């Protein structure tokens, strides 16, 4: 079975190469025969990549340690569920998985747009997809082969990194990959349109829908990553500005910029070159993100797979794609010129333009901070670090500006906003924000940053609520529907617009969770003997005792505690440390009581032979809102994507 997979990826390289040649010739000569050959090559390639992926997964389940990758990332004790997640535990499997997701996307593209089979851009997009597939097939065949054999075959494998033995790891990496790889489709649509010179509305519509889809999946991946870090890393937070986290956030920011500026193109025929550039940049950043984390160029917890050859291949690909993309944009420059002009600074177009500057500024600051240790090393010869303190300092002001624009964007009018329009739309939200900040000041609640952030969030939510209220009232007046029915049909009739507003509301709710949980976190270290109690903030903890035990692949020590607040029992918390036998890596399982208003989070830090424990206790207010807001954001995106009922193309 594994030989079948191995030969599938070898043969696929030939299939994809032949498909690309057929596609190039077919586009040049407008030959249907060759264009169809290219399409079939893409379908056959997907089948071959699926075969290779399934055979590697099968090797994990069969404990086939003759394959080096299987021996490196699994063992006989590894629970069966993690035999699947081990596929993306290391570099070689991750690249194959990248390829697998790309081939699924390519097939989905061919199927979703099958009605356009007679159009040239359909095939030029396919050609670009084959090109990207060719690059990753070259990686898998020449630089990062997951089917390398071992002889003699070891009796057991090294085991899986314990950090990856978490249910979120079954969803988080595939989501990130699906989001990352999904950005290839809008890129291919844009480049395909440039190649054949068909720069009408067709490409932009396809691009927008595929970008929203990938953007949503990437957002879910980022949120799940945060949840995993919160549950598994035991430091009371969810975002540590690790290079891998940054690599996922940067293209998400540029894709967000594109989703806003594309509206200006659709509505006013402007920013066409800018939109092409954003699509190209987003794709390059997904590749660069993979490169950053896979080549070892940036030291990271995830850089367990460092290979200079691989880095060289990535760099060559990035430079080539950037040059080709820029060349194509330059070639079609005349067709991409703006049809209209911005009429006022006080217009939605201008706000979107500045929103783009802020989003790109954020992406640049994060990318620059992530790469700065490498740049510093190149210039000064020694290595320095850039940690969370730096990123917080640089990005928080920009995120605050972005928050304000999140409220202004949906409510300001296109072309030119009048003074009366501005007063009508913004006076109440500004008042609400100022009152909120005033309340914080009046009650002497600590800090300045958090109240400022909360004020901005109140502004955004007030803007959105007012917009929904005004529009549904107008609909109710014209149709006679009840308030809720009017709101429902308002959203249903204009999914893209109101789905977008819901996305903005989700972003604001997530921001609320971030601001409150980081601004007002309480952290305390306590030492307790069995039977002793302690008080942290308004919570009383009673330590019941330590337990030792064994899992199939690890030993553990558990501390059990009862938690009471204001005389009301909240529940029993169990926090543990595990020591995985194969890897000898310690690992924390946090104890958690989660409510809408707060999380009570306990980490077992140390213990003595006499049974005394040292605990790190965190009270994280409103941290659940981070994921709650994420859920609202995803719901809004789904509403945007939902196809119109009863309408067929």
């Amino acid at each position, binding site marked *: 079975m594994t030989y079948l997979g191995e030969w599938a990826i070898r043969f696929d390289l030939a299939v994809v190469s032949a498909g690309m040649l057929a596609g190039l010739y077919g586009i040049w000569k407008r030959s249907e025969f060759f264009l169809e050959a290219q399409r079939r090559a893409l379908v056959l390639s997907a089948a071959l990549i699926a075969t290779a992926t399934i055979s590697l997964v099968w090797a994990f389940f069969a404990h086939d340690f003759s394959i080096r990758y299987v021996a490196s990332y699994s063992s006989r004790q590894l629970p069966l569920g993690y035999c699947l997640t081990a596929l993306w535990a290391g570099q070689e499997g991750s690249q194959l998985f990248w390829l697998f997701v790309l081939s699924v996307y390519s097939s989905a593209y061919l199927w979703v747009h099958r009605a356009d089979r007679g159009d040239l851009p359909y095939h030029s997009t396919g050609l670009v997809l084959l090109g990207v597939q060719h690059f990753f097939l070259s990686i898998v065949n020449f630089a990062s082969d997951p089917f390398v054999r071992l002889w003699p075959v070891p009796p057991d494998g090294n085991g899986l990194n314990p950090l990856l033995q978490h249910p979120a790891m079954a969803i988080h990496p595939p989501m990130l990959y699906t989001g990352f790889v999904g950005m290839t489709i809008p890129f291919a649509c844009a480049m395909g349109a440039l190649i054949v010179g068909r720069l009408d509305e067709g490409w932009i519509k396809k691009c927008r829908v595929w970008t929203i889809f990938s953007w949503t999946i990437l957002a879910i991946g980022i949120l799940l990553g945060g949840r995993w870090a919160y549950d598994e890393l035991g430091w009371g937070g969810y975002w540590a500005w690790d290079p891998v986290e940054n690599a996922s956030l940067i293209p998400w920011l540029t894709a967000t910029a594109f989703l806003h500026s594309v509206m200006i193109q659709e509505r006013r025929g402007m920013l066409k070159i800018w939109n092409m550039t954003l699509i190209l940049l987003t794709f390059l950043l997904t590749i660069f993100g993979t490169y950053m984390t896979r080549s070892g160029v940036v030291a990271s917890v995830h850089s367990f797979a460092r290979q200079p050859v691989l880095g060289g291949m990535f760099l060559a690909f990035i430079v080539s794609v950037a040059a080709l993309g820029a060349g194509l944009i330059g070639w079609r420059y005349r067709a991409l010129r703006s049809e209209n002009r911005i009429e006022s600074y006080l217009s939605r177009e201008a706000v979107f333009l500045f929103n783009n*500057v802020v989003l790109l500024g954020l992406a640049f600051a994060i990318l620059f901070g992530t790469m700065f240790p490498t740049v510093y090393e190149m210039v000064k010869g*020694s290595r320095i*670090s*850039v*940690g969370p303190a730096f990123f917080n300092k640089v990005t928080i002001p920009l995120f605050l500006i972005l928050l304000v624009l999140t409220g202004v964007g949906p409510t300001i009018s296109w072309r030119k906003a009048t003074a009366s329009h501005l007063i009508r739309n913004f006076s109440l939200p500004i008042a609400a924000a100022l009152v909120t900040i005033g309340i914080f000041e009046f009650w002497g609640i600590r800090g300045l940053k958090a109240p400022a952030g909360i004020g901005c969030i109140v502004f955004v939510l007030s803007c959105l609520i007012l917009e929904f209220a005004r529009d549904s009232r107008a609909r109710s007046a014209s149709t006679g529907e009840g308030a809720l029915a009017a709101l429902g049909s308002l959203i249903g009739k204009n999914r893209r617009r109101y789905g977008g507003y819901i996305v903005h509301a989700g972003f604001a709710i997530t921001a609320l969770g971030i601001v409150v949980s980081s601004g007002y976190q309480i952290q305390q270290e306590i030492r307790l003997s069995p039977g002793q109690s302690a008080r942290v903030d308004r919570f009383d903890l009673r330590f019941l005792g330590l337990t030792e035990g064994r899992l199939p692949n690890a030993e553990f020590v558990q501390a059990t505690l009862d938690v009471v607040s204001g005389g009301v029992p909240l529940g029993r918390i169990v926090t543990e440390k595990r020591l995985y036998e194969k890897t000898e890596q310690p690992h924390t399982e946090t104890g958690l009581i989660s409510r809408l208003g707060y999380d009570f989070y306990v980490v077992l830090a140390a213990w003595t032979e006499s049974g005394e424990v040292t605990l790190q206790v965190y009270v994280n207010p409103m941290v659940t809102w981070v994921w709650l807001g994420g859920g609202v954001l995803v719901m809004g995106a789904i509403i945007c994507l939902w196809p119109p009922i009863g309408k067929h193309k």
Partner: protein
Amino acid sequence: MKSLFVAVWVVGIASGSWAVSMDDMVPEFMCPCPDQCGKALEVCECSDAAGYKNEVATLLQSGLTADGVREKFVEKYGPAVLASPPARGFGLVAYLLPPLAIGLGVLIAAALVRRWRRPAARVPGLTDRDIRRAEERMKKWNSSNGS
């Protein structure tokens, strides 16, 4: 097994006075473990991290100031142990370039809007005389074509 764990996570006796200072100090450092895990010390869970946190606590207990602890750590583990770039020399670039780039972006966007806002070059407007002349020519053209 307990003793193995204790060796890994042994933490010094916590006293209220340094516990607060340690919380302030730890976020300033990266984990300097030999594996180069590359994580912030505050977040790191590798087997050496607890030892480094303990070292911060011991240095603070010995009466060193925050600057003193930083110096000791840099001396022992190199400049990469600090979680922020030095705000001097080439390290300043890290602090200056992002705001400069964003400022430049804002200026370019503002300039673009300003340029776009300028009305396009004016085409001379049509006079009544022009319209009359055009209508006469149309009539002439229609009559010569027999319609």
